[in-house]
């Protein structure tokens, strides 16, 4: 009985995915150097601009809320909460769109890599789906209950994001260059006459 249900499930699943394939236009041919450099930049932006602990803590800090609640009139409190909500939603949206872009570029690079690791790819896929789901849930929570609605979920999202970043970091490691030396060092001995 289970075998029969499984057969039906596979048959219908294949039909559904074929309909999607028939309707699909061809994706852009990817894999150029420029796109990989773009992936590196996106990763840097997520790691340095969106995920650092102090930035996340600052955006969602309850001390600010406590202070405003204690000293400011109701109108200011409402304006503060409105503003924080806007920033929180923007932060999640930015994180989400950066990861969608990063995953697209990761897949474009991964498909031409012969030693692709199935375990790593599955892990990355699961983390990515979990991250997107958490971002979606966070957005809903922020919209409905304000920027301080889901601190636990926020921790889950940043942890999943860090894991995805770590795996992407490994696959894009070859694009990491040495930082440029400071201007003073480079300019010494080459001043204009």
């Amino acid at each position, binding site marked *: 009985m289970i075998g*029969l249900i499984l057969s039906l499930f596979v048959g219908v699943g294949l039909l559904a995915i074929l309909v999607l394939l028939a309707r699909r236009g061809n994706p852009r041919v990817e894999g150029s150097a420029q796109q990989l450099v773009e992936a590196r930049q996106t990763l840097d932006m997520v790691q340095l601009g969106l995920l650092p602990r102090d930035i996340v803590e600052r955006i969602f800090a309850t001390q600010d809320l406590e202070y405003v609640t204690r000293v400011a009139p109701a109108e200011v409190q409402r304006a503060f909460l409105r503003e924080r909500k806007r920033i929180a939603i923007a932060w999640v949206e930015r994180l989400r769109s950066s990861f969608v872009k990063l995953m697209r570029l990761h897949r474009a690079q991964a498909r031409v890599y012969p030693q692709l690791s199935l375990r790593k790819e599955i892990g990355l896929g699961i983390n990515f789906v979990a991250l997107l789901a958490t971002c979606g849930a966070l957005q809903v929570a922020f919209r409905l209950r304000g920027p301080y609605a889901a601190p636990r979920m926020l921790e889950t999202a940043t942890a999943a994001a860090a894991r995805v970043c770590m795996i992407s970091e490994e696959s894009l490691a070859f694009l990491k260059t040495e930082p440029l030396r400071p201007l003073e060092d480079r300019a010494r001995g080459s001043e204009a006459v």
Partner: protein
Amino acid sequence: MLTLIVWWLGILLEALILVQALRGGIFGKYPLFYTYIATVLGVSVFLYIAAQMFPLWYRKAYWNTQIITLAVGCGVILEVIRHVLAPHPGPARFARWAAVIVFAAIFVAVFLHSFFLREWMPAENSADLERDLRMAQALALFVVVFLVFYYRIAIGRNMKGMIVGFGLYVSVSLISLTLRLFVGSQLSPAWKVIQPASYLAALSVWTVALWAYEPNPVAKPPVGKAEYEALARGTRAVLDDGRSSFKRTTPS
């Protein structure tokens, strides 16, 4: 009468696909696929003659020849993997492994079935055997299409048609064979129409999609370390140039 019309149309389309492939020089590009079409054409003509001349013998011949075309049909999946995933070695490796595992599992299951259930003979339970093999084909195709979507692999008209046509036939066969086992012989009259009709639909898709040779879009070669370093060197040179100009304009 309807069955006969479907039959004639099928033979006509198979012959048309083969003639067009020979005329357009596509046969050599997809040899496994066209071998499958040629085999099915041969079997269709043979079965047509058998049905007219030896109607009692036809039923047995049908299932035996069905197993042959089913086995040759696995070549279509190999053809798809070879063309769609060849420029993408990582996903190609995944697809090959998935196909090997799925087919091995099905063959082991059939072997165990016939070993432990003495009364169950593959030759006398051809419908069961066909369902199992269709299941393997469906799973292998599903993996290939999933990889095409996941890695955003661009495919040409020929390959898209080959996948959609074959997948349509395989999935409809799998569903109708399964329902036949569920519902019983009540479904037989419907099954006699559904399966040939799905094959006719597949032939129509192939006729249109494989009318002329249209290869898969060529992916740009991956960026290598050397290519990237050359790019970084160029950028750094431009930056250094800019910095020295900047230094010259800075008052000391």
